């Protein structure tokens, strides 16, 4: 019987029905302390330290502090120090603050090559779906499940239903992976993927870079899906070639079998014309409240949308391009990889950030930061008036000092525009790195398709 990519990975990892083996467990400081505590309390050990990897990301200040002791916020400091202590005690490899490999957990996995096709990967974080871009089954879990994986390297799981979203055509000029996924969520809704693992397919996906694919899979959860996946291909193999944890040579033959067979059936199939998508901007307080940049803020169609417009302080009918901004944030596990920074840098090269706007760029990892600096991107951003920061989650959720003030309006390359997500009372609009960069310069949203890049 023809099988889906999900079927193949699932079957290879079933220890027994309902018990799934986990190949890689990623750990960060926020959702792990209670799990380590529970292990300690029950006198249990960590089953597979060699399949576990930790980093500090959510709490780290992005000001260049390089030791936990330098974190001024006491609770944040305790949380990072607790992670360091737990990792020492249980033998978990850790890239904490100050390490040259530290960064957002979903950026460093693929970057180090520990994320590989065909694996099962979990992390106490909903954006774990990011890793599915390399053809893995990757999903977020809660702290009780973190404890379960630490102790047993397995999870009690029911197999999700399978959905395929197929994109016809190619993305147009100026339309990015971020726009593709925002447009998709606008279409299926924030609940559309609940209960599903979503496989993204079609020419528009195949021609995306590895980084673009990660952006797409990353936001699967915003459409309700727990896992997003893309069949590995030459783009994937080239990405993995030479990475520290990747096998050398990369086993192309074995990995090409990791794709959905012709004729395999899905529980749900969605088709989207990629060529019809425009650059997207969210106007509300869920990622599904989204419009083309050339459009306008819509009339509210529900109580939730009414509430969202009040919170966002927007009137129906306002052109998206007329929305003025106070802040711009380029970063987060959705859009902070080197390709994202290069794309944003091309847009700002030779220009200045609007006087009205305070803008920051936060590389997803210390390695991305080093690479960007080697290419001189930091100088491009600095000259334009951007604040150039160190790696971390930063203003994606503001558990660290980077936050919005009440009432501030921000163009953000992150993944969630929930009320207060980036700071209490802050108003977030989700966009691509290119659109965020252009918005920083213009002080309002602009259609990136009409932007002239300096020669």
């Amino acid at each position, binding site marked *: 019987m023809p099988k889906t990519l999900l079927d193949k990975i699932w079957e*290879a990892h079933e220890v027994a029905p309902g018990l799934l083996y986990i*190949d890689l467990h990623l750990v960060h400081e926020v959702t792990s302390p209670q799990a380590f505590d529970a292990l300690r309390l029950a006198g249990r050990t960590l089953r597979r330290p060699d399949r576990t990897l930790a980093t500090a990301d959510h709490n780290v200040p992005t000001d260049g502090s390089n030791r936990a002791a330098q974190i001024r916020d006491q609770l944040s400091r305790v949380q990072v120090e607790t992670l360091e202590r737990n990792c020492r005690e249980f033998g978990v490899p850790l890239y904490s603050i100050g390490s040259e490999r530290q960064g957002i957990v979903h950026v460093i996995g693929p970057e180090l090559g520990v994320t590989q096709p065909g694996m099962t990967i979990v992390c106490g974080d909903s954006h774990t779906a990011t890793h599915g871009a390399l053809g893995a089954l990757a999903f977020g879990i809660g702290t009780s499940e973190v404890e379960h994986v630490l102790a*047993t390297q397995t999870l009690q799981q029911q197999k999700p239903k399978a959905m395929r979203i197929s994109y016809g055509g190619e993305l147009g000029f100026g339309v990015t992976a971020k726009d593709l996924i925002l447009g998709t969520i606008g279409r299926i809704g924030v609940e559309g993927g609940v209960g599903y693992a979503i496989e993204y397919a079609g020419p528009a996906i195949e021609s995306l870079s590895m980084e673009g694919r990660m952006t797409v899979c990353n936001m699967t959860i915003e459409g309700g899906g727990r896992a997003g996946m893309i069949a590995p291909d030459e783009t994937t193999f080239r990405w993995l070639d030479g990475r*520290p*944890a990747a096998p050398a040579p990369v086993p192309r033959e074995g990995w090409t079998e990791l794709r959905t067979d012709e004729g395999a059936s899905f529980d749900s199939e969605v088709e989207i014309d990629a060529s019809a998508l425009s650059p997207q901007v969210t106007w509300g307080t869920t990622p599904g409240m989204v419009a083309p940049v050339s459009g306008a803020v819509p009339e509210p169609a529900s109580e*939730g949308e009414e509430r969202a417009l009040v919170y966002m302080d927007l009137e129906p009918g306002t052109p998206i391009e007329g929305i003025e901004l106070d802040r711009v944030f380029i970063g987060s596990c959705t859009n902070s990889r080197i390709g994202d920074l290069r794309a944003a840098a091309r847009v700002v090269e030779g220009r200045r950030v609007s006087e009205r706007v305070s803008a920051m760029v936060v590389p997803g990892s210390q390695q991305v930061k080093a690479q960007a600096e080697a290419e001189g991107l930091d100088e491009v951003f600095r000259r334009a008036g951007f604040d150039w920061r160190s790696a971390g989650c930063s203003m994606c959720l503001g558990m660290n000092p980077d936050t919005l003030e009440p009432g501030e309006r921000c163009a953000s390359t992150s993944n*969630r525009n*929930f009320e207060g997500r980036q700071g*209490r009372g802050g108003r977030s609009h989700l966009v691509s790195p290119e659109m965020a960069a252009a918005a920083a310069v213009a002080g309002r949203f602009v259609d990136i398709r009409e932007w002239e890049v300096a020669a």
Partner: protein
Amino acid sequence: MNAITVIAGNISVLRRSDVDTDQIIPKQFLKRVERTGFGQYLFYDWAKEPGWDLDPNPILVTGRNFGCGSSREHAPWALEDFGFKAIVSPSFADIFYSNCTKIGLLPVILPEEEVEALMGETSARVDLEEQVVSFGGREVRFETDPEIRRRLLAGLDDVGITMQRGEEITAYERERERSGPVTTAL
């Protein structure tokens, strides 16, 4: 985890859809390294809005897609610590649903019109054994995955159960584990 059979009592109504975990428990409270004491921070920002009124009754009744967003188990911890024992909604986000079942907070899915009807009542009775919610003189059936139901009814500790299957896991590792990255060798 305590065993659940019947949860009965007054209901609290939160008439909103797509309630995300950032609202249930905002990020600043995720810095705590303890597992208890989150109830006081439940809906921290919303609770300051005029007209906000949510009592710590045993049953919370709410709108679609409850618990969307992050995987933070702090959200169920806060709801449970506040006093809720069951949450009734037309639908839940996947990770949130699973997190609730791990701590013995019972998520109950009812059709939209039944949730709407229940919102008009003051009390209800949720019976997990029979899988029915009774209110206003009626009984409405709900479905729970049999395995999850069995664990909730018995109040079983998942980790403990799986630890007893150590040999199966070892056999899997010996025979079928794929070669993969060795994080300790990086």
